[in-house]
């Protein structure tokens, strides 16, 4: 009545359903595991300059206004590592309102943290890893922004979720060099090109 193939298929289908049930249970439980990370971001300095970076895929990069931040990060995220944490993706965003845009949120720095030892962050006078510039090429009309540290834990298996923590308000000074005009020019040019 039962041959080898039938037994084999029975065993594999049972194993599959057990594994799936386990995966669901693990996915539900993991985000509930408590953690107590400590974190602090302090801003030292923020400067804006115009058109220094060259990006081969972005012709507007030459005339855009860039902000360069100097900040410290002190964080101990080691308590966020549990048995189902593959890595933590830590990133700092700057968000601000601009005249024509409701929300602007830009990642200025990120780091992949793969174990508990790396989870103790102590950065001194770090600069932003990614260029910080506005969609409209200038920071005109933008006075303040918020820096926020986010942690995105990536599990070995299960659900993705995000933890954002503390935000500090910053002020964006405008570049005082007489660079306003080329910026405006580029803006107009770009609009027609889209």
């Amino acid at each position, binding site marked *: 009545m039962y041959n080898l*193939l039938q037994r084999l298929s029975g065993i594999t289908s049972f194993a599959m359903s057990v594994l799936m049930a386990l*995966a669901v249970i693990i*996915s539900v439980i993991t985000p509930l595991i408590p953690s107590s990370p400590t974190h602090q971001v302090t801003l030292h300095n923020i400067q804006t300059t115009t058109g220094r970076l060259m*990006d*081969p*895929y*972005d*012709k*507007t990069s030459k005339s855009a206004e860039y902000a360069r931040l100097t900040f410290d990060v002190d964080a101990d995220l080691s308590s966020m590592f549990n048995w189902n944490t*593959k*890595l933590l*993706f830590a*990133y700092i*965003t700057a968000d601000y309102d601009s005249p*024509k*845009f*409701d*929300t*602007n*949120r*830009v*990642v200025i720095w990120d780091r*992949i943290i*793969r174990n508990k030892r790396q989870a103790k962050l102590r950065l001194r006078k770090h600069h932003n890893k*990614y260029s910080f510039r506005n*969609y409209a090429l200038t920071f005109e009309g933008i006075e303040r922004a918020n820096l926020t540290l*986010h942690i*995105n834990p*990536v599990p*070995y*298996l*299960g*659900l*993705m979720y*995000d933890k954002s923590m503390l935000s500090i308000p910053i002020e964006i000074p405008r570049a005082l060099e007489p660079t306003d005009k080329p910026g405006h020019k580029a803006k107009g040019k770009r609009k027609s*090109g889209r």
Partner: protein
Amino acid sequence: MDVLLHAKKYGVRSLLLQGLTFLSVLTSAFMIWKGLALFTNSESPVVVVLSGSMEPAYYRGDILFLHNGYTPIEVGEVVVYKVEGKEVPIVHRVMKVHTESETNKQYLLTKGDNNSADDRGLYNPGQLWIQRDDIIGRVKGFVPYAGMGTIWMNDYPQLKMGLLGTLCILSLFSND
């Protein structure tokens, strides 16, 4: 031959019934897939990672479960998007979001965790941003390496043919 023998032994009715059961299995699978697509608002709610650009978070062969929804995209979310005119879906992280007040249009820039530069080189020439409509879904959950079979079958077509062949032969020989 086998089919004829079967028909002689059990009658045409049983044969038709078998065919019907087979069809109902196929259609219910299709319905579940389409229902999921409707529920998640994503054209393909389950995808397999094909490249290593998101390592060490996602490796080749991991299965991702997507949910698109209707809410705006947030920075830091891992999304799957398709650039207009290109077929291959890409799994990358959103690095910049600008939402226009008047139109609520979102301008997004993505980057792979394992890449040093952002994705502007992957977009169409001259394209600086992707939009909300280009996003197929955001990654909500994942199972490691479970999709490796699909990748092997894509890489080695002989394997696929062999597997199909064995299945056919098995179904011919197991009559009960």
